[in-house]
């Protein structure tokens, strides 16, 4: 399972990397970078789901 970011929708609010630093970091010019390649444990998955919920741009998705 992977976290995907739609960089067209993303407006660099920063909510994902400030709330979930274990999963995202701030990259160039404020866009998020996903730190975990494959999500295998429940804790990380919960972080991803929370990030999806708080993203104001609706730019994050989980894909198999």
């Amino acid at each position, binding site marked *: 399972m992977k976290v995907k970011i739609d960089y067209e929708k993303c*407006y*660099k*609010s*920063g*909510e994902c*990397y*400030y*709330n979930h630093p274990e999963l995202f970091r*701030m990259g160039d*010019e*404020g*866009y998020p970078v996903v730190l975990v390649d494959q999500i295998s444990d429940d804790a990380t998955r919960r972080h991803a789901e929370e990030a999806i919920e*708080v993203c*104001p741009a609706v730019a994050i998705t989980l894909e198999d």
Partner: protein
Amino acid sequence: MSATAESLADLDPREFDSEAFQQDPFPIYKRLRDYHPVYHDRFHNRWILSRYWDIDGAFQDNESFDRAVYKPDGPYEFGSRHVFGPNILEYGNSNEHRRLRNIVAGQFVGQKLTDFLPMIDQISQEVIDRFIDDGEVELVTQFSSQVPIRVISNMLGLPREDEDTFVEWYQLLIAGLGFGGDHMARGIKARNDMWDYIDPMIRERSKNPGEDLLSRICVAELDGSRMSVEEIKGFVALLLAAGGDTTDKAIANMWYHMLYTRPDQLSDVLENPALWENVFTEMMRYDPVVHAQFRHTTREIPLHGHVIPERAGVILYLGAGNRDERVFKDPDTFDVHRDDLHMGRENRSGRYKDGKPGHLGFGIGQHFCMGYAMARQESAIACTRLMEAIRNPRPKFAEHPGISSPSIDSGGFRSPQELWMEFDRP
């Protein structure tokens, strides 16, 4: 270096305690930026950053700059440093902070906020109706300090019939924080009355929670347990101060700048009310409600040829960074049409797709103001409603003592103490 430059570079830290600094800190801010981008204030035992990108850097780097009040190596009783009792900001950069913040943060943005806009509208209208026939208004007491507190009170789910009492307590409380003396005693009494009033509600809603914000706070769990009644009161107090008082002062500052700083641009705003959002943004840059944020270093920070030691207190002068001539053209000019400032809604990251820098007035990053969207909407709605209700707004007095604050360095909020305006009816 010329003699003038030498005297400008020579900064006496006691100047930070002067009346002149509270009234007009900008000349000192400029001297800091130009001559002391990293200033070691030995008198107050702290370090000062004042340039835009240095402040941005400190905000972004939570690992190195911690917001926590406590010292990891010292005895610290939670809540002991705050008049209002324990609150979320004391948790620094921890998981507790993140979780407490998330209990309420969602209430102030997106759909939840949109749902509240008609209520903000209605409250603004009710407040305006009270003075509309007078032909004049003292904007601070009769307008700006009325709207946000009624909105917060509504969000908390307090009974509407008690709102006037609540506003009165709030005004006494805020005056007590700011101006000391008798005000302080009345403020403390108002705080106690308010706590007595809210105490049974906290107990009731802990048992039978509703959809309101107070209920949400009452039942929120941290590590499997709820907050204590005292912690909940601290949380409510923070919402009143951070969500009420700041927006109150933002609205007063916006009108001050339109009436006194740029009366020539008031006509533009009268023609196009959408510009109130620009007035808000430019006010948050030019002279924001909050000028200072505090951090503690968790490691040595090398910067501009200095080394800030580990565990040093650092003050970030947002008000100075916002006037950085390295970032903004003619930074000392208030201009609602400014094209080198991101004018739209703020971001927690401080990075924008239009490539322009934003104001620093909400902070950036981990501790970015969670009420940012609400403050902007509330200010714009209240100002627009007032403007629609009147014609030919003008200052009642030609002279005004200006914007000031009780103490910038203790986090004092900047605003005019009084602001009289005359107007005609449509």
